[in-house]
């Protein structure tokens, strides 16, 4: 019992930290694609960890079976959504620039202007 509750705490803590880093990345990272990466970390790792933490804490019931189903749906759907978003962005002309940092910065600025 001790071990399970410890595991649950670790899962919840790790999920919380990952959510925090994801949110920080969403705010601070420079371009659309890097921000998308930060958001997808939150969705596909932090949220399942939080749910697993809750399941371990409450024990296995019908509700936790439903929660496991939600984890499966999240793990499948969130990378797909990120993929679709990425594709839409590439289709819309936001090419990621690896070499020229300044250029990618100006591009981000135009993106930001357009979205405002």
């Amino acid at each position, binding site marked *: 019992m001790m071990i399970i509750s410890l595991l649950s705490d670790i899962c919840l803590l790790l999920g919380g930290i990952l959510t925090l880093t994801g949110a920080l990345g969403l705010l601070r990272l420079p371009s659309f694609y890097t921000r998308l990466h930060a958001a997808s970390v939150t969705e596909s790792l932090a949220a399942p960890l939080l749910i697993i933490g809750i399941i371990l804490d409450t024990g296995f019931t019908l509700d936790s079976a439903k929660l496991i189903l939600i984890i499966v749906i999240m793990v499948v759907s969130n990378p*797909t959504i990120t993929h679709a978003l990425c594709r839409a962005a590439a289709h819309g002309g936001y090419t990621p620039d690896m070499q020229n940092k300044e250029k990618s910065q100006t591009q981000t600025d135009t993106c930001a202007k357009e979205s405002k």
Partner: protein
Amino acid sequence: MIENLHLLINVSLLAFLVLIVFAAINTNNLFVATMLFGIFSFVTALLFLDLDAVDVAFTEAAVGAGFTTVLMLSALRLTGAFENVKHRHSVLGLLIVVLTGAALIYGTADFPSMGDANAAVHLNLAPEFIQLTQEKIDIPNVVTAVLASFRGYDTFGETVVVFSAGVAVLLLLGMGHVEPKQEPEQNIVLWIVVKPFIALILIFGLYVQFHGDFGAGGGFQAGVIFASGFILYSLVFGESYARKVIPSSILPRFAALGVIIYGVTGLASLLGDKPFLDYNALSSNPVSGQHIGILLVEAGVGLAVFATVLLIFYSFSGVNHNE
């Protein structure tokens, strides 16, 4: 502790609502505004969930966040993504808005406080409904009992309203005609993930439809969820393929059929010498008569809502191709 936690959750959700509204007013990118309104609906659904109004939360998430967002996006394809910026600052407008807001805030002073057991709504009919649901209808979900049986007239009216909304959109926009494309756009990842998801969504829709007596949900929610499965198919594989699965010509008939099922259930109880929509007449045992009546009525509502939602989506997405 729990009380404080509830208060904290409520306050932060309400603060989110206010922030989202200001962000939506500020932006002149209509895509961003549409997405913000989707988020607004989700936060509202969370608030309803926190108030234990699961059925309402369900509807808000399915209709407000799901279907309305798709409809707005369809409309944006016709209008373009940016608002025409007008730099007009009307003093009169500001005055009217401030006065209306102040009047509304003044009005909240007369509201009963949240969770007040002595509030007028909890004293008049609600105790009767809760008691009679156990005695006469014998289903766990009081919301379904009130919606389909005690307030059957109102729900019939709502179904007719949904139907006439569909008819109005059909008269204004028409069904449109989508030229069949040779090949849908190649996107293997989306195809593979979406196919099982559509099956899941349709099964969940049926579950919500027929489990509405026991858990959250019912015809309205099930109709929207079922339709959203087909809308997802249409978004990923293309409209011409969706129109092969469900031809646009049968949708108005489905919508009408839903309303007719509801009305005929009411007429059947008239034949049994009972008032309109009194389901006790449908079986020798009044309780099982209620069960049959609620099942039929919910099926009618589900069919009408499903057909109307899909019909409005087809109409909106068909306009673009007419040009």
